[in-house]
Each structure stands twice: as structure tokens, then as C-alpha cells.
């Protein structure tokens, strides 16, 4: 990982005798520098720094849009974690998000790696396949949700028809609590194109000499995959795992679209089987008008993500072997 702080300071050009000294260059640089950064800095303060601090403050308050925030200390946190009368679905939403992450992230990585290996193995048409496999990534969540609701339609959807060819009876994918997570994870794997591209770049980075040496030593494709490709791809896999977990724990837009109903109520699917943590958070903030609790939820998530990420850095092998 490159250290982003190592800026290349242009070496100061010494003022040689006989040349006109440049007046006050350093000071002018300071002014120009701050001026150029100013718009981005204003954005940063107004829409990143201040909101982060404000969210932390609000998380200790009782706040809705009609009243001004009143300090309640840790009450939001303790109520969310322990008061299952006031927040009956909090732990359910934690469970849904964890389940989704545990199913969707490995599935996405396997799909991405498989696709990358296949695309990497061919010459003719590799650009075309790469492009086709990438299409789902650039598709808007709203459209993805709409398309997949139609694909998963229990009566007329394409999925059930195709499964029917293999003798699988039709399933009510998005209305059966047991099938909601697999159905959502399949959509995530369908959109694995970014990971596929990054894996491809990783594969291209494996020195050809290594593979050739393995072939000369008589290693078969399975052995080459296990002994060379997987270890060499470890940094890529680690990166995709960490970022994938962070993204999966925050999944929201797609479940919002999929489980919106005509009467404008979003409940998170059958028996809350699709009530992800962030969907729950959104409902508290923008439907139930409980901003303080929503901010507390967002900090619980932030701490949780930090812990999970730290654990991965500690316990998952990340260096290429």
C-alpha cells in the first residue's frame, strides 16, 4: 500500500547570483494553495466533518424534526441494545445484515474469481466477455431491484421457469423468509463485475515465470491454482474481502427497492427477513422520525465495522506468499 502522505515536494531552486530573485514565491504558494483547496475544504467541513461530529452529538439526544434535540446521554444506545419493547427489530436487523454479509460476500468473491480465471484463460473475445460480465455493475439500484422483482416473480418470473426445466418446483423467492437472503445474495453475485476486474488485474500481476516453472515441474491446473495463483492473489482477495464486508454490512438501496410496497410501507420483507440494519436505520430516521436513535444506530454500525475490519487485518492472511 503506497503511503499517500509522501508528497513530492519540488526541490527548492536556489537563487543563483545574477538572476532576479523570485519575490515571495513561498508565500504566494501558500495563498494559491489554500485558494485552490478552499472549495473542497468547504465541502469537507460542511458535508463530512461537521456531519460526523453532529451525528455523534445527536446520537446522545432525543431528536425529531418537530423538536430540538434534548440530551439523553447513553439512553439511545442502551435502549437499542437492550430494550426490545421500544426497538423490537434491532437485533433482527443485525442478524439479517450479518447473514447477508456471510452469504453474499463469499459468493461474490467466488463468482468474481471464477469469472476472472476464465476470462484470463482466453485471448479471443476476452474484452467482450469482460464487458458483458461488467454490465450489471453500472445498472442503477432502482432498476436492478425492479428487474429482479420481475425475474423472481413466483408465477411469471424467468427464474422459476428456468429452475422448472431442472425439476425444481416454483418458489416464492421474495416472500419466503428462508429464501430472501439467498435471493439477495444471488443479485450481489450477479453484480460482482468490479471484483472480477480487480481479480483480473491481480492475475495479470502474477509473473509468467512462476507459472512456467510450475508447469515444467509438472504441476497440474488444480495444483497451480492452489500453490501459486491463490497465494499470489492473497492481497487482492484480502482487499476485496475487507471492502466487500464493509459494503455488505451497509446494504440498503437494493433492499429498499425490493421490499417497497404500493402503500408506501417498507417493512423489510416477509417476517422482516430482508430488514437489513441500514434499512432499519433509514426507517427510524425518515419514517419514524427518531433521528437520535438513527444516529446512535449509525455509530453502533461504525464501531462494529471498525472492529470487524481490525479483526480481518489481524487474522486473515494478507501478504502474498
Amino acid at each position, binding site marked *: 500500500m503506497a503511503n*499517500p*502522505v509522501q*508528497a*513530492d515536494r519540488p526541490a527548492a531552486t536556489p537563487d543563483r547570483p545574477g538572476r532576479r530573485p523570485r519575490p515571495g514565491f*513561498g508565500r504566494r*504558494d501558500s495563498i*494559491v*494553495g489554500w485558494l*485552490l*483547496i478552499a*472549495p*473542497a475544504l468547504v*465541502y469537507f467541513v460542511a*458535508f*463530512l466533518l461537521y*456531519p*460526523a461530529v*453532529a*451525528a455523534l452529538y445527536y446520537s446522545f439526544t432525543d431528536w425529531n424534526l418537530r423538536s430540538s434535540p434534548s440530551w439523553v446521554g447513553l439512553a439511545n444506545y442502551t435502549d437499542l441494545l437492550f430494550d426490545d419493547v421500544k426497538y423490537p427489530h434491532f437485533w433482527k436487523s443485525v442478524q439479517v445484515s450479518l447473514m447477508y454479509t456471510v452469504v453474499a460476500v463469499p459468493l461474490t468473491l467466488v463468482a468474481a474469481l471464477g469469472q476472472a480465471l*476464465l*476470462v484470463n*484463460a*482466453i485471448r479471443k473475445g476476452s*474484452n467482450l*466477455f469482460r*464487458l458483458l*460480465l*461488467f*454490465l*450489471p455493475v*453500472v445498472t*442503477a*439500484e*432502482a*432498476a436492478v431491484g*425492479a*428487474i429482479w422483482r*420481475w425475474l423472481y416473480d413466483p408465477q*411469471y418470473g*424467468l427464474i422459476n*421457469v428456468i429452475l422448472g426445466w431442472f425439476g425444481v418446483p416454483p418458489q416464492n423467492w421474495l416472500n419466503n423468509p428462508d429464501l430472501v437472503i439467498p435471493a439477495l445474495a444471488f443479485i450481489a453475485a*450477479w453484480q460482482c463485475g*468490479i471484483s472480477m*476486474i480487480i481479480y*483480473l*488485474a*491481480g492475475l495479470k500481476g502474477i509473473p509468467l515465470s512462476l507459472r512456467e516453472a510450475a508447469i515444467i515441474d509438472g504441476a497440474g491446473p488444480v495444483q497451480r491454482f492452489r500453490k501459486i495463483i491463490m497465494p499470489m492473489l492473497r492481497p487482492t482477495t484480502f*482487499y476485496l474481502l475487507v471492502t466487500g464486508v464493509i459494503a455488505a454490512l*451497509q446494504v*440498503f438501496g437494493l433492499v429498499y427497492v425490493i421490499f417497497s*410496497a*404500493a402503500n*408506501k410501507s417498507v417493512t423489510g420483507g416477509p417476517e422482516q427477513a430482508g430488514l437489513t440494519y441500514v434499512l432499519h*436505520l433509514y426507517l427510524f*430516521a425518515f419514517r419514524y422520525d427518531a433521528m437520535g436513535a*438513527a*444516529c446512535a444506530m*449509525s455509530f453502533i*454500525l*461504525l464501531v462494529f465495522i471498525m472492529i470487524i475490519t481490525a479483526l480481518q487485518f489481524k487474522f486473515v492472511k494478507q501478504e502474498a506468499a
Partner: protein
Amino acid sequence: MRNVRLAPIYIALILLAAISVVPFIWMLATSFKHGHDVYTKVPSLLPLDRKTGEWAPTLENYEYVFDLRGLGTAFLNSVWVCLILIPAKLLIDALAAYAFARIPFPGRDKLFVLMLGGMMVPTITLLVPRVFVTQELGLFDSQWGLIVPNIASVLDIFLLRQFFMSLPGELEEAARIDGAGRIQIFWRIIVPLSKPVLSVVTITSFIFHWNDLVWPLVVLNDPEKYTLPLALQQLATAEAGRSYYIMAGAAVAVIPVIAVLLVFQRRILQGIAFSGLKS
């Protein structure tokens, strides 16, 4: 011999590509079908008449969603927001990145690290107070509320800075000796040399903001101001069960982005590999 070995790979790839693409074909087919041709026992990937099996496409679903379901207005709203937002964002990000990369001033690197740190905070944590700030600025329920709170991106500043730092410094030194100012150097030297990375940032920004659902969802109330994803979402709930309308709406949202992907595919895919590996 080699062809025989490659055959299973091609077969697997064709299958995977089909999984990738068939949902879009299904979307298009449904969107061109007459309502009474949609709900058939054996689904068809072509707009065929359910009784005669003849080719029977129609544009009436598109006309309906454009005129009566506000997709036309939403399309223009989306275009308008992107036309203002993307160039402004690109300019702000590039100028800041240039200063971070090339202009030494006290406190610069500390500020940069602070901004990078801010990037680690999940957007969802910032959502509620961001809406509050937007409200305080009087931008709630307006398209400026979509533009101003997204007017810069720390990630893009980071990517641009990394690229600017990789450019050779000699040209700038020469220009400086000739008396060019920082801004002149930026426009005459840095920008022309950075076209590839600038276009990557532009395209990915466009895709992101064109598709964005969450921010418009929390900032807009007035359906007249909806952008495409929001209008599509509205359509999908209001017309639930009439998938031919919904699929026409989805196609309107999807096709411009796919067109951009087809035109700029090489840039986009390279950019993803680049930004993914850098971060």
C-alpha cells in the same frame, strides 16, 4: 488441440455471460410487449403476440411512463443535475488535487490525511446530519440539494492527486522559469497530460450520480423534481403488477449508462483496476 482445451472455458463463459445479460434482454422484451402478451405460461424473450406468436412489439409502455408517470420530466431532471454537478465536481476536485500534489504550503499534508480519514466514515453515518445541513442551507427538496452536497469527492481528489504526483516535474519547472503562474500551469500542462484519469473520474461520477437513489430519496419530496431512479422507484410501487410499465421505466434508466459503458469501456475498466488497486 488448443481449441479443444479452450472449448469448455468458452462454454462456461457463454453461460456466465448469459446470466449477466439475460435479465436485460428480459427487461427490454417485457418493455416492448403489449400488456396482454406479458403474462404467459411460457415466457418469451421476444415481444411476441401470445395467441398468434407473431412479432408484435409496441412503444405504448414507453409513451405511458414518459407522459403519464413523469419519467420524461425525471429524465430531464437527471440530465440537468449531472450537467451541472459533474463538471463542477471535476473542477473542484482537480484543483484541490493539484494543490495537494504540487503546491507546498504549511499544514497541507496534515489536512490531506484528515480528509482521507473522513473518507473512512461510512456514508450512512453521515446521512441524517447531511440532510440536516442541506435543510439549513435551504436546499431541501430542490435540485441544488442534489448538487451542492455532492460537489466534491475525497476519493476523486485522492485518485487525481496520485496521478498528478506521477507526472514528471520538468515541464512545470520550465514553465515556471518562463514566468507561468500556478493556474496557467494547471490548465496548460497538468490538464492536457491528465486526460485519461480525468475522463475516468468523469465517467465514474456520471454513473454514480445518474444511478444514485439514496440521496435523492432523502432530499426530494416533490415528484416534479424526482431524478430517474426515484421516479422509477415510484413507478415500480405505483404500478406494481404491471411489469411492462416498470420494465419500460427501468430501460429508460439503464440504457444511457450502458451506452456510456459501451463507448468508454476501456477507460472505465482500466480505471476500476487502477483505483481498486491503489486504495
